[in-house]
């Protein structure tokens, strides 16, 4: 299982960092024979909460599992291939079968308050931050 990590290092160039991670993941997924980086995910920091959006077209709610253990979020499940009896395959770009992705969230979140919804093939996971991880305004004293 590939465990990706991400950082907020300012001035580091997030895209470049991401590319490096992507290559690492592709490498690992490639070796264990799983389609690289499926399903694709985005992570958002909304101040009060962290959001993870996962593209999972054609995946049923009952076929997805979301688990948060310590600070590692794992999304697993399977996407069924379409079933057309006696059909020949002309083209298959979509990824089918079992998937599993883990991402470490380097911010303390309220594990008991995590919510996930699936709408139109996009899974959205909301993770409210724990109090100490929320941004704080620091008053400047004279």
């Amino acid at each position: 299982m590939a465990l990706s990590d991400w950082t907020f290092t300012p001035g580091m160039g997030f895209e470049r960092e991401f590319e490096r991670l992507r290559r690492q993941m592709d490498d690992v997924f490639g070796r264990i024979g799983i389609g690289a980086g499926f399903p694709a995910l985005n992570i958002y920091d909304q101040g009060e909460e962290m959001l993870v959006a996962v593209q999972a077209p054609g995946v049923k709610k009952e076929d997805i599992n979301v688990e948060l253990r310590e600070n590692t979020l794992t999304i697993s499940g399977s996407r069924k291939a379409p079933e057309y009896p006696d059909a020949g395959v002309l083209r298959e770009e979509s990824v089918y079968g079992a998937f599993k992705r883990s991402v470490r969230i380097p911010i303390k979140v309220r594990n008991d308050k995590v919510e996930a919804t699936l709408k139109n093939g996009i899974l959205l996971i909301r993770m409210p931050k724990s109090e100490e991880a929320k941004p704080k305004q620091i008053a400047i004293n004279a």
Partner: protein
Amino acid sequence: MATQAEKQPRREAGKEADGTAENLVEMGSAFLPDAAIYETEDDLFISLDIPGVEKGAVQIDVDESNTLQMRARNGFEEPTGIVLREFSIGNYYRSFRLSDEFDKDAINAKLEDGLLELTVAKKEEVKPRRISINA
């Protein structure tokens, strides 16, 4: 989440609901969605991955040159504060050239969980016929 199967004739796909498919023709740049295509003796099945698209935001047309065009408006509103991006959010467009053996008036579309499934029937005259042998 949508669970109900929806079958509708060609050109109606974009016309239901609240008309969000209006002006999809002029929507500018769009992403090319992943597709899977299967064929049987009677039909062609095209499935397209269009996560974020609501029912009613898809438009399917077949023009005079038998080109099937699919346009879909992505209704997913991107949250602010991106810190890791593996996918971008945008509308979808894809086209397929159909050969003459397909009946462009016999296309069905179904959208569920961000997956669009099109069924294109072959014309009656090209379907294989089983001839029963009489004694």
